[in-house]
């Protein structure tokens, strides 16, 4: 899984897919190294995605038709950009909503006194 200095493996498991889908939805297209550095910056280094988790997942998403790739030549090497297919876009929205909903549910158990909102309710 990830190399993650802040959180335990148990918590992190299952979050990689929504993170990647969200980033691709937001950025349009990204290459592997870009995804790892973006996550590192966004989480202030609390989550560092390892290549060993990232690339197998990207290839699986490609095989499932959720993402496609565009290749660009960078000097002698090829850079592979990953982008969401129309089907992948729908799936991304659903996966992100599901995860946000999950977080609210967990929060209501672990910290019932806190009155949380995620932008919608005031």
């Amino acid at each position, binding site marked *: 899984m990830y190399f993650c200095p802040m959180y335990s493996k148990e918590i992190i498991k299952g979050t990689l897919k929504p993170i990647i889908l969200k980033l691709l939805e937001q950025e349009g297209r990204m290459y*592997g190294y870009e995804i790892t550095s973006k996550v590192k910056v966004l989480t202030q280094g609390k989550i560092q995605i390892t290549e060993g988790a990232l690339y197998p997942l990207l290839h699986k998403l490609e095989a499932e038709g959720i993402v496609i790739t565009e290749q660009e030549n*960078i000097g002698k*090497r*090829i850079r592979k950009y990953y982008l969401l297919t129309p089907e992948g876009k729908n799936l991304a929205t659903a996966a992100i909503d599901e995860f946000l909903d999950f977080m609210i549910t967990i929060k209501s158990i672990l910290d019932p006194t806190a009155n949380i909102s995620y932008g919608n309710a005031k």
Partner: protein
Amino acid sequence: MATLSEQQIDKIFDLIVDNGVSYESLQVDLLDHVCCMVEQKMDEGKSFDDSLKLALQEFGYKHFSEIQEATIYLLTLKQRKMKKTTGIIGIISSLLVIGGVFFKIMHWPGAGILLVIGLVLVGVIVFPLMATLDINNASGKMKKVTASIGYLAAILLSIATLFKIMHWPGATITYYSGLILLVFVFIPLFTIKNYKTAENKIMAIAKSTLILAGVVIFWGLMPTGNVSHLEKTHNSYHQRVSK
């Protein structure tokens, strides 16, 4: 921003290949990834060699082959599940057919239902699933065609057997289409392919003749006409008994 020379890129590529990454699509990903890591370190003022060393330490040499294993594992997960399902249904349906034939020989009740369920499972589920798996895995057009024809013949023959046993119409035409496909298309293709690639040529021919022998036994013993030899004996026996 540092850019790597062609020689430097080649060096990194060789390292990736030497560390066990053979999957081409992943080679492209990892080459770009390691190059990015090296370039970032070169931007911090380090030399190429130092940057590469640091990047590889960070990455971990063992990591390369592990990434490939993890990728292949994820990509074949669905297929492994499919193989398991096919295997389980395959065993159940074969046992049903064997049981059905045994019940029929023993004149026990329930032979018909066992054979129908068994043969339907074999012809409609097991062979098509096996065909999908084999055709996907087969390398080369020739192998794919051979596998498709072989399975089509097998599906036709199992359905023909079902129809024949149940005395449903259309059994004979299905049976002969399957048989002709098997003997005149599949076996020649199979023999040619096997003969070309086999180390032991005689063994390759033996395999084909054994399959042919199996088909001939099946053809010889299968009641094909309106009343088979087996049924004739059976009927005359019953006539004698009833007299």
